[in-house]
């Protein structure tokens, strides 16, 4: 029940959850780039989803207006977040649910683990949720002797493979069907040893295993895509029906939700439920949209809990430029259009939030020093901004965060020197001449110091011209 903040809002704590890079992005990316299977899978998947999404977005004449509406609703929500959260709390409580406030990952894990323990159960089914991955809930449950079972097919593949998700929506985007078959044969309880790698057979095996699990498990843990402050309604959107099973069959349902997921009114869902499926999976309508408001006596879970998670979000909210990152509805469109993500995949970003949104969200949740290479993991090409259904200006946030990231001393000195010279046209012209006449390097850039040597590894250094433009101009 930690609700009082003293001073600056805290960032997400270290040592729990999955928000921090294990190594700098360039090093992790280098390894990923060397994996031809990964490159092929990602290239294929992102190209397909881009085309599909582009087609259905093209069908809506009012797509841009919808984006404006989504963006405005989110901005309004963030401007009065505390008030909306309290409204949500009252509405959920009035409907028979219980609301818990978690300042960070540690507290959220403790709350959820305690709630499951109180039921006496030793297994929970899980609906795919970014928030529970962010806080490392599965590890916390396992440490408490509780077995979490992921029920989204791709998430199950990741879990059985003792792997990490690499995409917000398609967590096993880096796996192909041969690899999936091997994982199932190795780790899925009761699997048929004659399992083939046909997609239908793989889905059949997962279905048989999950059905059994759904029917025997009395507690489920979910995230939430939206929470309506006005009514206390929580919403989960998914495509496989596994979510519907988790949300309706168990006796106890525990939902962990980032505080930014609240929307003011029921009516607002109209906008987001149009934006989300078209931007994310390229569907016109989301296949399974489940909504529940507290407890319905005699129908569905009779114990309903909502854990409201901060874990650095208040710190993000305090940043005028960066707070837009909280508008994200996790559609993953920005990943699918990102030329960097398409080549490196999600693991290179370290955090559970990969791609462009990860590059702006993770460093803010943890404090930029703990994810210092992520704001630079972008060529600032702007494709993410154009694709985002709620118009988050990701390139501007990246640049803003670069300004706050710790700078290497040599780089800072070089930048200051360059600015000094460029503010003095005479010095600048002299430097131009010196560079040309001195010719410090050949076309292959031999002798260039790092990081400039990185350029010459794959690209020739331009031949200096016989005269600079200003020399030509002065002579004409």
């Amino acid at each position: 029940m930690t609700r009082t903040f003293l001073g600056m809002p805290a960032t997400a704590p270290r040592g729990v959850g999955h928000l921090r890079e294990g190594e700098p992005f360039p090093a992790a990316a280098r390894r990923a780039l060397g994996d031809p299977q990964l490159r092929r899978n990602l290239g294929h998947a992102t190209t397909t989803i881009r085309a599909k999404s582009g087609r259905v977005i093209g069908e809506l004449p009012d797509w841009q207006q919808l984006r404006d509406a989504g963006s405005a609703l989110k901005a309004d929500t963030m401007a009065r977040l505390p008030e909306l959260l309290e409204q949500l709390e009252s509405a959920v409580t009035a409907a028979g649910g219980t609301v818990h406030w978690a300042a960070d990952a540690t507290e959220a894990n403790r709350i959820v683990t305690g709630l499951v323990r109180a039921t006496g159960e030793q297994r929970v089914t899980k609906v795919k949720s970014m928030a529970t991955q962010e806080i490392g809930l599965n590890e916390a449950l396992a440490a408490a002797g509780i077995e979490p079972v992921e029920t989204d097919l791709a998430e199950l593949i990741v879990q059985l493979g003792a792997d990490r998700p690499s995409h917000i929506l398609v967590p096993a985007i880096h796996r192909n069907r041969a690899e999936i078959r091997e994982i199932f044969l190795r780790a899925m309880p009761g699997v048929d040893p004659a399992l083939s790698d046909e997609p239908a057979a793989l889905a059949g095996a997962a279905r048989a295993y999950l059905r059994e699990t759904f029917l025997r498990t009395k507690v489920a843990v979910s995230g939430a895509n939206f929470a309506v402050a006005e009514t206390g309604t929580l919403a989960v959107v998914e495509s496989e029906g596994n979510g519907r099973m988790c949300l309706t069959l168990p006796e106890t349902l525990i939902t962990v939700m980032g505080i930014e997921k609240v929307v003011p009114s029921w009516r607002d869902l109209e906008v987001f439920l149009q934006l989300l499926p078209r931007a994310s999976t390229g569907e016109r309508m989301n296949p399974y949209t489940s909504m529940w408001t507290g407890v319905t006596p005699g129908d569905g879970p009779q114990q309903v809990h909502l854990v409201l998670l901060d874990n650095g979000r208040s710190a993000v909210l305090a940043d005028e430029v960066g707070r837009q990152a909280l508008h994200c509805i996790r559609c993953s469109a920005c990943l699918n259009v990102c030329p960097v993500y398409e080549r490196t995949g999600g693991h290179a970003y370290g955090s559970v939030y990969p791609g462009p949104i990860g590059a702006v969200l993770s460093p803010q949740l943890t404090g930029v020093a703990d994810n210092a290479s992520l704001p630079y993991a972008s060529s600032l090409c702007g494709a993410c901004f154009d694709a985002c259904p709620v118009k988050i200006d990701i390139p501007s946030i990246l640049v803003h965060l670069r300004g706050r990231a710790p700078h290497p001393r040599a780089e800072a000195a070089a930048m200051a020197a360059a600015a000094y010279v460029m503010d003095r046209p005479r010095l600048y012209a002299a430097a131009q001449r010196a560079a040309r006449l001195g010719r410090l390097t050949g076309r292959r850039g031999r002798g260039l110091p790092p990081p400039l040597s990185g350029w010459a590894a794959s690209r020739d250094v331009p031949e200096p011209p016989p005269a600079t433009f200003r020399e030509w101009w002065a002579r004409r």
Partner: protein
Amino acid sequence: MRIALFATCLADTLFPRAAIATVRLLERLGHEVVFPAEQTCCGQMHVNTGYARDAVPLVRRHVRTFGPYDVVVTPSGSCAGSVRHQHADVAAAAGDDRLAARAAAVAGRTYELSELLVDVLGVEDVGAYYPHRVTYHPTCHSLRVLRVGDRPVRLLRQVRGLDLVPLPAAEQCCGFGGTFAVKNADVSTAMLADKMRHVLSTGADVCAAADASCLMHIGGGLTRLRAGVRTVHIAEILAATETGREAPA
């Protein structure tokens, strides 16, 4: 019309042909071009690498240099983008609201070359002759920051002798991204590899763009591979005529 040229530090230093071609082209169309010598760099590299404070004097210099002119042209989509979309913010963030206002005014009078030609001067056929098979890379900042749309392609379509072949996946970034190219050299190279593959698939002998920086990147890769495809700034193509020199030096 009297037009002030912002050559950009990169074209001034390493790719003067782009700036020279811009001068020749505009003069041929009957306009007066001036080159205010106090200009240096727009400061984009500083801003985009996280050194906005170092860029403040460069913004001030740029505003002072170009403030007196009614129309400013630059042969670079990304430098035009920096002037139009960053300068005022950099000044405001540094607490200099007066500078921000003046920067916004200069921004409103600054055009990328294809915008100047099509929107301000109202010309699409500039009377150029360029007998080559050309593919055009639209560059991210021209496309998504300035939103120049198909203006460059409309200009190229009017060029006599030019065989314009569409570039597959044209809208994908070439991987330059300023200091991204050195900070994330491997990812940048992977992006470049795909861009070059698409360029080569067109069978073009020239890859054109409206930004010397992207051309330096793509060209640096193509020459390293001895790929036999040249990179040329769109200004050089538009400046070329049947009688004149094809490539101004």
